[in-house]
């Protein structure tokens, strides 16, 4: 399978991406093992759509986001952005391409430079990359800030003078000011309280509509992901276990992990009987993952084969990919 759900207007294509962090030990600090934070992950994101990436904490979601933008170097695989291999670019070429692909970080407290005024945080890179002519710089800044619900007089203030929600808006304005095509949203709302979460999510959706932005939305909050995404990827221990359009994944989750995950979404109706699947045990160490299918230690439908052989990703129905032995051969059960 080479196209991995590739459509007509693919902006981001990830092929067999791997990111291992070596564990050093011994007297000479040689690599004794590796944490496989991202292990052989492939997917595509169409222009103007949002891909939601969900999974437990520590499963490699954020690492995908960062490796994809080459904020950290990959171990293997390719990332194509507009058909360009990001990891093959030279330093300067990559830097020139940076404005096109932005990231919004999870923690609005630590991701803003504490000793720069907000106007500088947002505008610095605009000048650096000549996003707008110099004469229009101030206007562009004011406009971007007002889109994100910030006032022009906020420019001279420092990040610590803002609340968490406002800081996240600064982070969004910062990314947006560069007229990007693609934004990785790395848990942009998980540090905020629920009312602010809704505002930020809706802001992101409005911006997408207006500027035809493409998002990779990383979250562990399934309701948020369901609200904003067009396609969904489910990760477990560095692997993408299920990937497909929102309708397919939410209406007919195939992988036992996805099924368990979705069964845990709270329903705002006390009369509905929840049929939760409780996963036994905890997530294995990514430095020492189990053989075979990485989920087999906690899977309620584990078979002998799962303990030996690692399942490969297969397209079970058009646009719906699963890596599970349950669906080998005969298609849908």
């Amino acid at each position, binding site marked *: 399978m080479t196209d991995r759900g590739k459509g007509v207007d693919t902006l981001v294509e990830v092929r067999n991406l791997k990111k291992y962090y070596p564990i050093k030990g011994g007297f000479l600090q040689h690599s004794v093992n590796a944490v496989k934070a991202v292990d052989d992950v492939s997917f595509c994101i169409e222009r103007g759509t949002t891909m939601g990436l969900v999974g437990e904490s520590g499963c490699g979601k954020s690492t995908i986001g960062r490796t994809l933008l080459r904020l950290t170097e990959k171990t293997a695989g390719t990332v194509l952005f507009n058909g360009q291999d990001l990891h093959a670019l030279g330093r300067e070429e990559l*830097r020139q391409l940076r404005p096109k692909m*932005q*990231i919004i970080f999870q923690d609005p407290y630590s*991701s803003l*430079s*504490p000793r720069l005024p907000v106007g500088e945080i947002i505008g*610095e890179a605009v000048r*650096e990359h000549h996003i707008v002519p110099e004469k229009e710089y101030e206007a562009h800044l004011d406009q971007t800030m007002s889109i994100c619900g910030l006032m022009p007089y906020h420019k001279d203030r420092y990040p610590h003078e803002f609340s968490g929600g406002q800081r996240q808006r600064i982070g969004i304005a910062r990314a947006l000011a560069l007229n990007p095509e693609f934004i990785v949203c790395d848990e942009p709302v998980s540090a905020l309280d629920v009312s602010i979460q809704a505002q930020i999510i809706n802001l992101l959706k409005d911006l997408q509509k207006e500027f035809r932005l493409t998002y990779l939305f990383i979250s562990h909050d399934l309701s948020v992901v369901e609200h904003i995404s067009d396609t969904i990827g489910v990760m477990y221990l560095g692997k993408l276990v299920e990937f497909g359009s929102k309708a397919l994944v939410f209406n007919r989750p195939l992988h036992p992990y996805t099924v368990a995950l979705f069964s845990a979404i709270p329903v705002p109706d006390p009369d509905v009987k929840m049929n939760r699947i409780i996963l036994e045990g905890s997530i294995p160490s990514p430095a020492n993952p189990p053989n075979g299918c990485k989920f087999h230690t906690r899977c309620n439908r584990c078979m002998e084969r799962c303990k030996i052989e690692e399942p490969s990703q297969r397209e079970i129905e058009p646009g719906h990919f699963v890596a599970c032995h349950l669906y080998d051969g005969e298609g849908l059960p």
Partner: protein
Amino acid sequence: MKRYILKRILLSIVILFFVSMVIYGIMRSIPTSFVEHKAMERAQLPGAKSYTEWLRILNEQYGMGGNVVTGFFSWISKIATGNFGDSWKFTIPVTEKFSRVIWDSFWLAFTTLILRVVIAIPLGILSARKQYSTTDYAITIFALIGISLPTFFFATLMKLFFSVHLGWLDLFGKVGRNYLTLDSLGQALDVAKHYIMPVMTLTIVSVGDLMRYTRTNMLEVLNSDFIRTARAKGLPERTVINKHAFRNTLIPVVTIIGGTLPSLFGGAMITETLFQIPGIGYTSYLAILEGDIPFTMFYLMFIAVLTLMGTLIADILYAVVDPRVRIA
């Protein structure tokens, strides 16, 4: 904040009292006695009075008749009125001798400080940027050699190399033998030339700790989220380092340097003595050798004041930076 500073200053005065008590006790207890030495000298002159006779006369003259306790209180009561007395060895007021020699020490320390900052901070930043690289290890080894080996080791090596083998610089002294025949510019250059080896020695031993400190702070900042943001913006690496990272490293580094400012006047006793630069360190060394109590007491108290001032300045700077410290 005012209360905090006031409290600290009052505390410092109490500490100084006890420090002076201890060092006076030590000065009176060391085997080198200025008075006994002088009495011995006088008694050996032809037709002189006996040693015990001289000892009695000199003890009276120098006010050393009583025991340690009365000696201490008579000393400190004079100090309280601002009278530091005359130096026994140099036979001029202690403060006058001090003001004559302090500037040599100051310029030595000041030049060293400038070089230290100029060398240590860029090296620390470079080391942090290339963590665990060959460059990093090379800089770290260089820093550790400087921290670990004493001044007299480097001073001796430098003398061997620059004076004995190459013959470029004089072995010791503040001025050359032709000093008096030179014009004023030539005299300044002559002094500068004699400062080269002492300054180099002091720089080598002091660069290490500031460099390591800069490196640690820089690493902490470089791993923070906002640096990742700055890189994601596509800013040039130079801007990321200078504008985003270094600005945040600067505060702790400035605090540390601020804390060392008083020691600019402390003198470098070993290095000054090795190169016979007539600064406060070398002068005090000579005074201690002969048991010159007024001058030594003044010097040691001065060092104690500088140390207390250093910690006070550092604490105040911390309090300015971090409001949580002020409560304590």
